[in-house]
């Protein structure tokens, strides 16, 4: 049975990997389509019906473009940058609980690659590694715009990681565990953490936008000031990797937000559905619910992008250090007091 378990695990990893890649691929399409709808346009609609082959066309274009490494760039680090960005983006999904344990032919398969007891810390570690991809890439390009973008990315991520961590601490006071699997289980039915931690969720949401370098915090790739930001010198699939990593990051951070605050695979009336559908189909339905919530968050990311203009750099720092961090600390204090005296 040992061999079968490894095989199942391997299959799960491949499936999750594929799902995050396909979601990232179609996020690029969805972004353009959503942007078009927000601006009363049609969007890409020439490649295939409704343009659904557009990501393939884009990917093909990326692969076939000429690969340019600037003469003065640091060759090795220039390649390490995008590789690191995409690698860290991809391994984040390992600890996310995608659903309850599925029972197929008497064999129970957990829909989570690994439920390590420090799941949140793992996510944090991986996410903060992601910024090294941007930093190294920007620095190795030997270009002032890239460097500026890299500096912005680094300082932004550092300042927002703090308030993100602090907002998580308040959540941990409520849940009492670091394991994402357990956090997901605790939110059974409608007991979603967002009900107990609305301020914490808001803080986490804002920080997630900053961590994934999405508008209104997309200063590292601010076209108006920095040409292309940290990927100014990149071309071909290395540029593709950077862009792709952004979309995978968006998917992963949406999934993390759903797991931590919006009830993961739980939904009201899930016990009833479990009795109705049995051990095989009910967890898969839960996975569907989780997936839908994640996609809604990705839509929200895009919705915000086409609504709010980009922050200025000093405004970004103001918001991070002067507002979000004090608010997060206050949130911890209030949560602690409430838990101590009213529970």
């Amino acid at each position: 049975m040992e061999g079968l378990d490894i095989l199942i695990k391997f299959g799960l990893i491949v499936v999750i990997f594929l799902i995050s890649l396909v979601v990232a691929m179609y996020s690029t399409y969805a972004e353009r389509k959503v942007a078009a709808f927000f601006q009363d346009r049609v969007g890409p609609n020439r490649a295939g019906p409704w343009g659904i082959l557009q990501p393939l066309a884009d990917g093909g274009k990326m692969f076939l473009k000429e690969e340019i490494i600037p003469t003065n760039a640091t060759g090795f680090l220039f390649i390490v940058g995008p590789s690191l960005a995409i690698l860290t983006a991809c391994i984040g999904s390992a600890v996310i609980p995608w659903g309850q344990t599925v029972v197929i032919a008497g064999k129970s398969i957990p829909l989570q690659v690994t439920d390590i007891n420090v799941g949140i810390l793992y996510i944090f570690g991986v996410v903060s590694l992601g910024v090294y991809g941007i930093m190294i890439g920007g620095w190795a390009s030997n270009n002032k715009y890239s460097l500026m973008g890299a500096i912005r990315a680094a300082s932004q991520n550092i300042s927002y990681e703090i308030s993100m961590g602090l907002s998580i601490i308040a959540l941990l006071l409520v849940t009492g565990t670091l394991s994402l699997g357990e956090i997901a289980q605790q939110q059974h039915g409608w007991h979603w953490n967002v009900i107990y931690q609305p301020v914490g969720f808001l803080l986490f949401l804002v920080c997630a936008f900053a961590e994934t370098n999405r508008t209104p915090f997309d200063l590292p790739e601010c076209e108006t000031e920095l040409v292309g930001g940290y990927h100014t010198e990149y071309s071909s699939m290395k540029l593709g990797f950077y862009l792709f990593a952004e979309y995978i990051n968006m998917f992963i951070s949406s999934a993390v937000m759903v797991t931590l605050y919006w009830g993961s695979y739980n939904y009201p009336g899930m016990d009833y559905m479990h009795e109705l559908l049995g051990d095989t189909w009910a967890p898969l339905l839960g996975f569907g619910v989780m997936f839908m919530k994640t996609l809604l968050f990705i839509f929200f990311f895009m919705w915000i992008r086409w609504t709010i203009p980009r922050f200025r750099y000093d405004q970004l720092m103001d918001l991070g250090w002067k507002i979000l961090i004090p608010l997060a600390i206050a949130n911890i204090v209030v949560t602690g007091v409430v838990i101590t005296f009213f529970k």
Partner: protein
Amino acid sequence: MESLSNKKKVLEVKPLNFWEKAYLPAIAKGLSITIGHFFKKPVTIQYPEQKREFSENYRGMHSLKRDENGKERCTACGLCALSCPAEAITMTAAERQKGEEHLYREEKYAAVYEINMLRCIFCGLCEEACPKEAIYLDGDIVPSDYLRKDFIYGKDKLVEAPLNQ
């Protein structure tokens, strides 16, 4: 100082109140506006398949007209080329031979008549200048092409189709 136009308006810059500083109500308002647009019908006209309705005096591609008997009206007088501010029109005149009376209305006709569509500014001065009512800008949009030489339209593209067809 008093304003001369009486339109001057002094705006007071108030400090932001708490909710304005908190951004969130403004963000919610912005989000509701954008989601309203999300469900609106797109205004796009998908050009090659769909075409915008033009006004009646729209000036599009030129056409060289024929008279009621199907003879070409143009006599190669050169007034259109002279009036053209962009110098887009060139022509070579020729004398009508015996047996060609059913083709050309006057004794002289344009053997070569070329309009460079990249130069043309579609001002319509040529149709105003024409004494024979031979040229009108009543066609469609000039289609795109790959090579500059393909934008020089000769008589094969400009002259109206013969009557009997």
